[in-house]
């Protein structure tokens, strides 16, 4: 992978760092208001995320779904397609994959087949708003977002009735067969194969797709100037369709890995909002796969570290959501902050 630090890359890094710094400053105010020492709070968040090998592995495990979702969203966002529906796509992919795994039983094909079907499930769910956008011109922000609710309630219905587990009392699926489980790579931890697949396969693939292929070129051209892209002979609708559907595919994988690597059953509470966290991560990483990778580790660390922090300092767990919200605001505002700083001469423009 080439890592050329061009001026605009450096600027992107500044933007991300400034956003994070400001978000942490604002969150400190929250800590002070609730009577905690912010320095100590951040210390425990760090310790909770990276304090020992097991905690570090847990952070990587948490990184996996966030990374997969946000890589997909980076593809969509690069093309200026605002997919807010990764959460729903994640659920539909996971559900479809789980049904496949449960019905195939213990066969060597079970794992690959369930991954494939999860991809198709996520794609199909994204294809609906994609078609609505490209054929009817309906704004994808609204459709993708609303379809999250449809997906989640639909999955809950499936888990309550047709696919309810025969052996537990909860609305959840049967346990997936052993053949569908992602193998553990480091004994006594939860480091499953999916973590490696996400970081060592999905990440480079998406990088390659976005930076090195004609599709990546089209994504950028359509995102930056759809009219010029059309004049240049690029099929704008098809590019938008593919961008949205690909992001659905990655969300679907993210969902399935949570089932086959962590929960071993499909549940209505499978995701604590990874589909939304992915949005924050893609924005923070500025749709650059490497930026997205670093940002997803960061958010995973906040996720995991916060529970330690809240136990030790007796603070509410909700700080995760708070930081995410504040981050979005600052990331979106970071372009203006940067321009302000450049005008004031803090950074050289």
């Amino acid at each position, binding site marked *: 992978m080439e890592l050329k630090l061009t001026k605009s890359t450096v600027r992107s890094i500044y933007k991300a760092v400034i956003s994070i710094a400001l978000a942490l400053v604002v969150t400190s105010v929250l800590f002070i208001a609730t009577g905690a020492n912010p320095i100590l709070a951040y210390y425990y968040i760090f310790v909770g995320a990276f304090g020992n090998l097991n905690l570090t592995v847990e952070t990587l495990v948490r990184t996996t779904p966030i990374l997969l979702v946000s890589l997909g969203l980076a593809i969509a966002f690069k093309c200026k397609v605002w997919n807010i529906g990764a959460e729903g796509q994640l659920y539909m992919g996971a559900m479809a994959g789980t049904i496949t795994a449960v019905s195939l039983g213990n066969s060597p094909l079970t794992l690959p087949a369930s991954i494939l079907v999860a991809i198709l499930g996520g794609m199909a769910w994204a294809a609906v708003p994609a078609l609505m956008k490209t054929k009817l011109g309906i704004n994808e922000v609204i459709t993708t977002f609303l379809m999250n609710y449809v997906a989640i309630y639909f999955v809950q219905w499936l888990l309550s009735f047709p696919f309810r587990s025969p052996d537990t009392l909860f609305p959840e699926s049967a346990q997936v067969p052993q053949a569908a489980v992602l193998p553990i790579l480091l004994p006594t931890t939860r480091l499953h194969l999916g973590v490696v697949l996400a970081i060592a396969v999905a990440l480079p693939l998406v990088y390659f797709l976005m930076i090195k292929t004609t599709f990546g070129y089209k994504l950028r051209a359509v995102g930056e*100037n759809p009219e010029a892209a059309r*004049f240049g002979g*690029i099929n704008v609708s098809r590019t938008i369709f593919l961008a949205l559907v690909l992001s659905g595919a990655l969300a679907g994988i993210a969902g399935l890995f949570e089932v086959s690597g962590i929960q071993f059953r499909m549940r209505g509470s499978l995701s604590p909002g990874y589909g939304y966290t992915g949005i924050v991560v893609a924005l923070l990483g500025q749709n650059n796969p490497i930026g997205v990778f670093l940002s997803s580790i960061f958010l995973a660390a906040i996720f995991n570290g916060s529970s330690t922090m809240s136990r030790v300092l007796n603070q509410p767990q909700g700080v995760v959501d708070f930081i995410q919200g504040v981050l979005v605001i600052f990331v979106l505002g970071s372009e203006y902050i940067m321009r302000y*700083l450049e005008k004031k001469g*803090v950074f*050289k423009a």
Partner: protein
Amino acid sequence: MPLSPIFFKKTKFEVEKVSNASTESDSVTRSDHSIFVRGIRKTYPNGVVANQDVTFSILRGEVHALLGENGAGKTTLVKILSGCLTPDSGEILVNGRSVRIEDPIKAVKLGIGMVHQHFTLIPTFTVAENIALSLSLSGRLNLDAVKGKIKEVSKNLTLEIDPDARIEQLPVGLRQRVEILRLLCQDVDILILDEPTSVLTPLEVEELFKTIRRLKSKGRSVIIITHKVKEALAISDRITIMRGGRVVKTLPTISTNEAELAALVVEGFASSLRVDRGKPGEPVLMVKNLSVKGKRGEMAVKGVDLVLHAGEILGIAGVAGNGQKELVEALTGLRRIESGTSLLKTCDLTNRPPKFIIRKGVSYIPEDRIRRGVVLSMSVSENLALKNFEEQPFSKNMVINRESIDRYASDLISKFGIRASDPCATVSSLSGGNIGKLVVARELSNGANIVVAEQPTAGLDVKASEAVHQKLMELRSKGVAALLISADLDEIIKLSDRIVVMYGGKFVGEFTHDSLDIQKLARLMLGSA
């Protein structure tokens, strides 16, 4: 975004150094100058020095033309004067007082306003609404007061305009008038016009010049940038020539002439273009009974027939808005054809997607280069490969070969004299004319059979224009057919083997180069025979 000032104070430093040095030694006293700038230097973030040691002045009630080749730094200089850019160093005096112009609002307060080359009006708003946007920066919107102000200003200067007209319904010339009126309503004394004539028809140019003369008679000053030496001679009192970011010379208009100016603009330039006529061959493009709808659903092209031969340049003359744009878009696959057919040799192009038509060898130079011709945030080489990045050797099995794209780009950059710091620079860092050159370079180099060219030389300097004309004729001699749509009648007449006149969505007349009757052509363009 409000930021705590303490937070960043330590690292803050001033970029601009405004000296208070006196200018007593200058021959003209300060108060004669509306603006006097000295020692201006501007470096862009990518290290390009676009202005260096620029000294320039504009007198009260003067029309001052700014000439210079593409990338000479003209736009940069006027953007500094109008507060869009801040210089690295140098001094600006307005009415004898040293000032800092941080932003366009400050510029307007100082009485300086600029009309950008690319219009900034909101198309769906009316004239009055657009002007109100820049007037009432606070408080309630009082449209009637705005209309009153517009009436007052336009009556004063006999600049007729209907304040209730929607911008999108106005022809380019009138839109420009609205831009000017908007500044005048803000009591601007010094108007800066960046290449106002490049997309105007000769008649519209005449109207604009009348406006400028009226402004001048009321004591206002005008800075006008143009690439047409004739225009500079016709309208200005003084002319400043820039080259390579420096001022080469400022001279009174009466003491110079066309040849001298051309040679000053492009060092040692002397026209070497030999215009010859083509030898039209087989028909390549056959259009039958073509009807196309316009943006608002009206029939814009009404049953047009057209045959274009290999090795022929066919000019379409006409006032903008008579269906030329819709015709061209239909031929290039960008707009639906309602009825009729478009045939390339034996291949039916009717309502095929743009990509299909591009693959068949139809090139298109759109008039609106910025919106339709380039992706500003992408690199020069990526933009040069916009139409063939999916072909070998630029990509293979979907994998882009950056080296070959860069090599191809470097070749075009030098062939067409595009001024770019390097092939990886973003197009947004190019000057207006160089963006034009980029689009022309791309469209004339991809082995097309047919070139559809809208205003191919708008915004290009004399040398670049001549190079484009040369290239068009070279292609013609190789059997390429060209459809030339231009507001510049001189250009059409010079290059075309045949000219058709378009009016009200129809072809109303046809001339061969030898049977040309300019008077009649002009009458046909206006719809009277």
